């Protein structure tokens, strides 16, 4: 991974050719990028995978420094756990992953040297990917990297970066580490890094192709993609899971799985009653599945969405608690033209009669008393005097 081996032409196309990556694999990869970012990115806004491959091939391999903070390495796994081993190989050729604690062969002082080298050689041009939350309490003493608090490492590395990407929910807002008591004062990158463009790619884990598309878009155009109000790239986070869910017809028809393993669950019915957070979760999972395998995503395998991309939903709302439907739409049922009117029961009629009778009786008595009162000569005289 040493930069000294990179020749003059360090475009992605040249690199892939030298590395012996088959063109077929690269085209496949570009097709997957087009699936994950069908609209909203300059690099995938082309006619076919060949055109996208030509576009991406022109880009300089982006130098990526990957920092791991309070993480579970799940986000790293999602990047590397492709269903085909050569795709993982390809990914590491498309981007230049110059520092990554899990992936790199070096350790100890050699690893630290690699980090310093990468920062020096691509000063101001590299992209930092942060995985995991950053503990801030007590000068960040709850996480040390090579003898320095994680907070300080983050500041050092991002201060010379071109852009910062928060990979996963922990890096985006603090994730599971910041939930509840939050003893280490964990928080996300966005609240610590103020002077660089920060892209949040929340998810537990997020789709790795969203990260790759964002990095490659930046490498090709020098700009981060359009972001929503939570700094999530719109191309991947502008839609509700619920609105694009393959099980939506079951929801509309009112067909719900009642519990795990019942007949309705086995029939692939809607998981809303099991606590699915699809109706409040913005993510692309319902149309862009994981590990290049069709239906490899929670709802696809029969588990309700937990809302892992939404701060305030995942880790805070119980997994099997249902959520409110913000904008109810018509169901797959119809009102009848001639509705059946429910009859009034004998008891209800009797009760209404008793109440009505009591009121009439009370009225009669009251009016008699009033009549007597008016007849009282003393009362009348005081009123008329005034």
């Amino acid at each position, binding site marked *: 991974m040493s930069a000294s081996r990179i020749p003059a032409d360090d475009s992605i196309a040249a690199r892939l050719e030298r590395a012996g990556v088959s063109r077929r694999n690269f085209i496949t990869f570009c097709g997957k990028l087009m699936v994950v970012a069908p609209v909203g990115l300059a690099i995938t806004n082309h006619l076919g995978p060949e055109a996208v491959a030509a576009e991406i091939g022109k880009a300089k391999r982006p130098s990526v420094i990957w920092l791991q903070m309070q993480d579970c390495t799940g986000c790293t796994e999602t990047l590397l756990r492709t269903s085909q081993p050569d795709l993982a190989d390809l990914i590491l050729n498309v981007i230049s992953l110059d520092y990554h604690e899990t992936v790199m062969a070096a350790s100890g002082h050699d690893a630290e040297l690699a980090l310093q080298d990468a920062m020096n050689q691509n000063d101001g041009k590299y992209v930092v990917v942060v995985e995991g939350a950053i503990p801030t309490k007590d000068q960040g003493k709850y996480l040390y990297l090579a003898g320095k608090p994680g907070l300080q490492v983050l500041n050092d590395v991002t201060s010379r970066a071109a852009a910062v990407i928060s990979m996963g929910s922990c890096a985006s807002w603090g994730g599971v580490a910041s939930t509840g008591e939050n003893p280490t004062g964990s928080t996300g990158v966005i609240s610590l890094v103020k002077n660089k463009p920060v892209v949040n790619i929340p998810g537990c884990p997020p789709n790795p192709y969203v990260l790759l598309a964002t990095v490659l878009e930046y490498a090709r155009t020098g700009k981060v993609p359009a972001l929503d109000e939570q700094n999530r790239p719109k191309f991947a986070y502008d839609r509700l899971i619920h609105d694009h869910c393959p099980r939506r017809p079951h929801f509309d028809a009112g067909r719900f799985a009642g519990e795990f393993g019942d007949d309705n669950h086995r029939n692939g019915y809607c998981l809303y009653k099991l606590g699915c957070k699809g109706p409040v979760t913005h993510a692309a999972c319902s149309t862009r599945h994981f590990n290049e395998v069709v239906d490899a995503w929670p709802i696809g395998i029969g588990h309700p969405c937990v809302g892992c991309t939404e701060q305030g939903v995942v880790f805070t709302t119980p997994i099997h608690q249902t959520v409110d439907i913000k904008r109810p739409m*018509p169901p797959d049922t119809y009102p009848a033209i001639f*509705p059946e009117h429910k009859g009034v029961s004998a008891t209800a009629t009797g009760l209404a009669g008793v109440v009505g009778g009591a009121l009439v009786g009370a009225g009669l008595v009251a009016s008699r008393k009033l009549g007597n009162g008016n007849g009282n000569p003393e009362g009348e005289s005081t009123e008329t005097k005034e």
Partner: protein
Amino acid sequence: MATDRRTLLKGLAATAATMTVVSTPAMAREKKNPPTDAVGLLYDSTKCVGCKACVAKCKEVNELPADTRNFGKGLYDSPDGLNEFTKNVIQLAKDGDAGKAVYVKKQCMHCIDPACVGACMLGALQKGKYGIVSYNVANCVGCRYCEMACAFNVPKYEWTKVAPKIVKCELCKDRLEQGKQPGCAEVCPRKAVIYGKYDELLSEAHNRLAAEPSKYVQKIYGEKDLGGTQVLYLSAIPFEKLGFRFSNEEAVPHMQQTVQHGIYKGFAAPVALYAILGAVMFRNRKKGAADE
């Protein structure tokens, strides 16, 4: 102030004389024709697949809240008919299990001679531009006579509001001004409901009946029914099954107004009423004077 018997009788006689001269026999009200700029909808129930795109679009463009009180409480916008939250609804004529499903779209029919306009005492409901029956809340006292008068059960009262209004389809009149179609017609994926000039829609309906006589009941609902409506319907099954209970050709206000206008012709009813009241007062006054 002091009116003696002589003066009163004089006045009554004068009024009676005027009435005899002025009044002519109460005449039946003339049948109304659609306005020259009339627009409307043509709904072909044989084309409708019941997708409810029109229901969702209507809510969106009219900014109406979802009615979540029925099916799957809270989850769906599932009105059980037209109501205070719903200006447009798709109903099922037949149970899907029992036979072929037939859908029918319900909204204001925009009658050529509307019962609601006839019943409205202050003109809150008016037949305005393009013949659209529109509602002006400033003139509404909330009597709900329009609700009672409508033969199609269309105007609905906002029972859940502190200051209730009447809710009914106004054919997206604001959208028409912007050069757009009514929401339902714009969004319909099968052109089951189309928007256009009334005359063109009527001839289109006749063309469809002539082109495929075996497909349709040979009738355009709304062509003549209840004096005619600017929303026209085609169907493969009898219209009674779609919930259209009336097919007499006389408009609702016809008899209503014939009777009322007859009574008030030449101010007859108030004069008669006040004559009687006057006579009673006169009698009582005389009695009172005698007692003293």
